[in-house]
């Protein structure tokens, strides 16, 4: 079986593996599932039930849905806080008969009747709340008991009041309006529900109370430890559930104007099924208004349509039970495996045929030597992860560290070290502009600047234009990597990958896709614009010196290309070195007009082969732990020098990889070559024979 097929190339180019993984990692995907179910349910029943999509049927659904929806919202609050409320049906029934009694028999005004009813609903909820929140009784048992007790009370008072309620009719326009009134041809109850649901959404997502509910449900202990009044919040959730049941009861009473012995009987099952189906977790800490609404309508459509199809009530109950079990199972399985599923699906390897690597044999410019095996070391053990190094015109040395600092080593002996600036993210590529301000690409943050005058750190840019065809928002800079400054002041920098964070960049090597881009920041207009996309881990950037073009390295593709950003060839890209034997990193100018290229690691034939086997890599990511994944060999690196035509002139190696494993950058300065490495704890310094002793890559014209 041969891997290198046209089929494979096309399949991995056009099949949206990447989009699927990215979609799944979105939070709103959890709401998308019940939405899909709702669409499915509508599709199925609209073909089965006559007049399903008629206006009156829909209006009926909306009206009933609003009543049920209120109870589901109440249940959602309780579920979010980590409890369960089985007594909603009984509270609903009592409130229903109470408001009817007050309006019909006592002939109270509608407004005061409603207020009293809601207060009673709250009080009944508070019974649950106190027992569960403060006395720490089990929610399930407690509300089961209140379900039974309140049901008994309901049966007693309903028996007593029923005749009175049935024999009088209130004359209140407000009461009628609530029951059958319409606004913009939709039931009033629906409007009320819509307003409350939107309010509930805002409460849950934007307000302190909502956050506290989620916090208590997510982790009761942590919420307690961070000072939240856990007991009170839990108790109030049940009060809210009681009030919402009361609202539903009032709306139902206004519509039907009568009460019967089975009002609200078995409602808890319907409500729970709706909440769970919507995706509100039994375990607490997760839930939203949208989920409650979706769940409500799914259940309502299923039960009503089954009833419309003349299915017996018993079967409908069974159907509800089955739906609930399925929803709970799915819920538990999904939450247990969500992270795993996402991480397995997120990495989406592509097909990348590698050109034959240039030979390392003796006699070639790449011949392995040990020129870097015993070089002078600066800051050994004092710096960690100096990805790039740079020197100013006074010969002071600067490098980034993984602690988020830019360190300065003082000339001439580089023994004295100080924190030049604290940035926070890991500094990668660096360049001085003509005024001596230090521009830094910071992993996870974007392009930053340290002013020369007062060492103040400023953000230059952290976003670019968003692509229209990506799932993930790619406007934020995730991994700005290296930069250089054009003579006119424009800053060109590479973003290695838009799919991984600073700590995960080696994973991008397994994708071998065009995940990176080159971005231009123009200080004159303060605009940031992506100029080249779909590059395979673009890394080093270096101005050629003609004011029109730059060289850039694509690490996983092992090639160096030239890009014209101005002049007659504007927009063109030309590959300069197609077949590097390793993974190129930063590029910088040499004093003799040539270019230094850091090779951070070497290609191995098995890894190259794996690049043509995306399925192999995908399964590997699924099956094996992170540390076991195949990796490019970035333990041994070298520095090469090439000319603008891509002819490699010489190479500098640390054969054993002991002194300078993984070189990610080098900088020539006044006859010396300084070396940095992202997994090193040192900076190397090599004397270059015959190099221009006055060469500075970024001359600074002090103001």
């Amino acid at each position, binding site marked *: 079986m041969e891997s290198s097929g046209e089929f494979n190339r096309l399949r991995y180019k056009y099949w949206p593996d990447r989009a699927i993984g990215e979609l799944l990692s979105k939070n709103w995907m959890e709401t998308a599932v019940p939405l899909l179910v709702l669409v499915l349910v509508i599709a199925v029943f609209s073909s089965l039930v006559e007049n399903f999509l008629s206006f009156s049927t829909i209006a009926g659904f909306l009206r009933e849905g609003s009543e049920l929806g209120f109870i589901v919202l109440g249940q959602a609050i309780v579920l979010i806080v980590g409890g369960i409320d089985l007594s909603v049906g009984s509270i609903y029934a009592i409130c229903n008969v109470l408001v009817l009694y007050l309006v019909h028999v006592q002939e109270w005004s509608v407004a005061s009747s409603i207020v009293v009813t809601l207060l009673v609903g709250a009080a009944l909820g508070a019974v649950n709340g106190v027992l569960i929140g403060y006395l720490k009784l089990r929610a399930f048992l407690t509300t089961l008991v209140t379900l039974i007790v309140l049901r008994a009370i309901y049966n007693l008072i309903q028996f007593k009041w029923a005749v009175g309620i049935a024999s009088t009719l209130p004359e209140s326009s407000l009461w009628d309006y609530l029951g059958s009134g319409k606004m913009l041809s939709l039931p009033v109850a629906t409007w009320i529900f819509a307003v409350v649901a939107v309010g509930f959404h805002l409460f849950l997502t934007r307000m302190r109370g909502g956050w506290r509910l989620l916090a208590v449900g997510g982790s009761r202990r942590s919420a307690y430890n961070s000072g939240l009044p856990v007991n009170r919040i839990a108790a109030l959730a049940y009060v809210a559930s009681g009030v919402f049941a009361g609202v539903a009861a009032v709306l139902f009473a206004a519509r039907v104007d009568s009460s019967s012995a089975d009002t609200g009987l078995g409602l808890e099952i319907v409500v729970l099924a709706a909440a769970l189906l919507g995706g509100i977790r039994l375990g607490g800490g997760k839930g939203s208004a949208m989920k409650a609404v979706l769940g409500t309508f799914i259940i309502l459509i299923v039960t009503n349509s089954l009833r419309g199809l003349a299915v017996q009530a018993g079967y409908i109950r069974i159907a509800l039970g089955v739906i609930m079990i399925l929803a709970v199972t799915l819920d538990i399985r999904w939450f247990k495996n969500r992270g795993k599923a996402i991480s397995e699906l997120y990495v989406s390897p592509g097909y990348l045929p590698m050109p034959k690597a240039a030979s390392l044999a003796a006699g070639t410019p790449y011949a392995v030597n040990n020129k870097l095996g015993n070089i002078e070391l600066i800051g050994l053990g004092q710096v960690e992860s100096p990805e790039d190094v740079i020197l100013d015109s006074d010969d002071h040395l600067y490098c980034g560290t993984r602690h988020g600092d830019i360190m300065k080593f003082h000339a001439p002996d580089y023994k004295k070290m100080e924190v030049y600036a604290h940035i926070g993210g890991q500094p990668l590529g660096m360049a001085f502009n003509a005024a001596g301000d230090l521009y830094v690409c910071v992993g996870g943050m974007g392009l930053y600047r340290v002013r020369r005058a007062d060492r103040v750190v400023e953000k230059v840019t952290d976003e670019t234009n968003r692509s229209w065809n990506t799932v993930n928002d790619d406007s934020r800079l995730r991994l700005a990597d290296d930069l250089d400054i054009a003579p006119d002041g424009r800053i060109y920098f590479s973003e290695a990958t838009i799919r991984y964070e600073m700590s995960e960049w080696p994973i991008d090597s397994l994708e071998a896709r065009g995940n990176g881009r080159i971005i231009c920041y123009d200080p004159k207009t303060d605009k940031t614009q992506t100029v080249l996309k779909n590059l395979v881990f673009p890394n080093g950037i270096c101005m050629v010196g003609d004011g029109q073009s730059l060289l850039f390295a694509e690490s996983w593709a092992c090639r160096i290309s030239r890009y014209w950003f101005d002049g007659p060839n504007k927009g063109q890209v030309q590959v300069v070195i197609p077949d590097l034997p390793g993974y190129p990193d930063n590029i910088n100018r040499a004093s003799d007009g040539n270019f230094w290229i850091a090779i951070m690691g070497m290609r191995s034939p098995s890894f190259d082969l794996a690049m043509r086997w995306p399925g192999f890599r995908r399964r590997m990511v699924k099956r094996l732990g992170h*540390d076991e994944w195949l990796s490019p*060999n970035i*333990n041994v690196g070298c520095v090469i020098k090439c000319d603008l035509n891509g002819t490699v002139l010489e190479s500098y190696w640390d054969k054993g990889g002991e002194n300078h494993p993984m070189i990610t950058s080098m900088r020539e300065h006044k006859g010396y070559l300084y070396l940095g490495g992202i997994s090193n704890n040192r900076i190397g310094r090599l004397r270059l024979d015959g190099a221009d002793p006055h060469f500075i890559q970024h001359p600074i014209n002090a103001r």
Partner: protein
Amino acid sequence: MLKQLKRARDRFFGAGEADTSVPVLDGPLKPNHILENAEVFFEATGLEDICITADGRLMVASGVTVLSVDDSGKAQTIASLDEPVQALTAYSDGLVAATSGSLHFIGGHLDGKQYRVAKESFDGCINAMCEHPDGSIIISEGSGRHGYSEWTKDLLSDGASGRVLQYRPENDKLDIIKQSLKYAYGVLVDAQGAIYTSESWGHRIVQIAQGNARSVYQDLPGYPSRLIKAEAGGYWLTVFAPRNQLVEFVLRETGFKHEMMAKIDPKYWIAPALSSGHDFIEPMQQGGVRQMGVLKPWAPARSYGLVVRLDADFQPQYSLHSRVGGYNHGVTAVAEFHGVLLVLSKGASKVLRLPLSDIK
């Protein structure tokens, strides 16, 4: 049908035959640095096997030669064969050395006798021998298809053509005791005459009786090889390479595996090795990336040094290690000699010396 479904399920969940998990080095196999820090006793190129003759002399197979080495490490050539020696054992009053498919008797009353085990079609892959109390020689042959040096190829092609043979010098009779073994490597005969062999690709030690193989120690975290009796009772077992999750995974990736074998130099295959980490063209795993100049001890290993002390029931007692990043890897033979344990690291081509009183 059910089998297909099970396979699909296994592939989805990474269970059953798609399971790439590897036993951890734990309990008696807890890692240490004893082997890595051991004193070097003897160095030569192409070291392969060691044994002690009946008169108490130490014999070492090095390339095509058999050397006699004294206590101070001074070597004297005893014999020189046409082909590299692949196994060595004491027999009666002399020695037997095996090349790929032939036995050569050296010294003793059978000196100079030769016997060809292999047939014409295949050179043979004899890798260990042991004298049976009844005067016969028990021989293990790793593969019926790939030569001794091509053992990674046999592993990657799911080799199961190993044999255990019994040879009687008095009448040149050769019996097949057991075939279709997943790389038989190392033989041992206990006091009762029972025959044991290591089944390397099966990660276990088996007892062979009446044509059946019965596990006596299984689920090893590496590929076992030669076995010898310990003087204090029990046995010494060498494990010549570690199991590695990536390798286990590659073994199940038929297409990739075959293209790799067809196109890439065997040195650079994703496969176990006798020594590794010293060539940057070798495959590497993410855990093996040096951080701040340090290779982490949990880095996945392609090669390892491991000697396991087994009790009389073949259960592990303790072990000697050379861990990832070390040099004394690929241990294929041990011998007890004048109160020291001599360990032959084929990966480093060294014989190491460990006083028995110092280890456990």
